[in-house]
């Protein structure tokens, strides 16, 4: 390589001084954080929606009825009498309200799962 080209390489390698170098780094960092937060929120929201749809599908498929009939025909597991709990939860409530409660519980479980995953990630 010609001597001049080596010199030119060296000159290009010397960065100019910017007085606002700290501000620039801060701007990049905040953009990075903003993108990261947006991505996390979108993923979380999509996960939540997916979870709710899944729970909705389970509820609408009549699985509760199956569980109820199973517990009724399984006296060998008296401690897990689901029908008993279901009966308590659903007592005095319309079927729609009961479904809403189950959906709410599912949403709480999803939220807790997301919080735990975030905690693990931060650690």
């Amino acid at each position, binding site marked *: 390589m010609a001597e*001049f080209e080596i010199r*030119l390489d060296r000159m*290009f390698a010397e*960065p*100019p001084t*910017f007085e606002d*170098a700290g501000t*620039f780094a801060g701007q990049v*960092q905040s*953009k990075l954080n903003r993108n990261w937060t947006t991505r996390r929120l979108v993923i979380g929201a999509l996960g939540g929606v997916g979870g709710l749809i899944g729970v909705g599908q389970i509820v609408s498929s009549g699985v509760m009825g199956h569980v109820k009939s199973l517990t009724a025909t399984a006296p060998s597991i008296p401690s897990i009498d689901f029908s008993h709990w279901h009966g308590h939860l659903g007592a005095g409530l319309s079927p729609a309200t009961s479904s809403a409660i189950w959906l709410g519980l599912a949403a709480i479980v999803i939220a807790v799962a997301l919080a735990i995953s975030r905690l693990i990630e931060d650690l």
Partner: protein
Amino acid sequence: MALKHTLPAMHDVELAALAAGGRRDAFGELVRRHGSAVRGLLLRMGAQPATADDLAQDAFLAAFEQITDFRGEGTFQAWVKRIAARLYVRHWRKAAHVDLLAETPEPDDAPRHDGEEGAAHRAALRIDLDEALKALAEPERLCVSLCYGGGLSHAEAAEALNAPLGTVKSHVKRGLDKLRRRLAPPGGDDGVERRVHG
């Protein structure tokens, strides 16, 4: 978060590895270290200050997205500079007023003061690289900056610019000749007659 206090003491490769694991503060340290170099390159390529800052930010954000591609084979700064250089080329091609494929006329760049006035004039022309680059035609400046500042080979520059390899080589050669004259040490060999090889 005791690790945060040790970030400034870490090597670029270590910081990049942390950033690859999602540590944005580690990447922030890389930005602090190399931000000026990337901005400087973009300015030297011909970007306006605001555009240079925007593109430098985009380059770092892109680098964070692709951080797992950085394997420490070259320097981190060179790697980000290449990303920034390519971003600028894309930007330049969108807004270019100059057709790189066309042969540019030889600019009126020859020293006008020869003889006894020559040495004094060359002393007055003892300007830094940034000023010297401004004297080049736009394609020359871009090609020289891409190859010497951005670290791209002639072939890579040609590909990025979507221009024939011979055209890029020609722009680089002409640009180097002009820079050699502009950056010649005062009173010394100005190298006007020398030619670049390779």
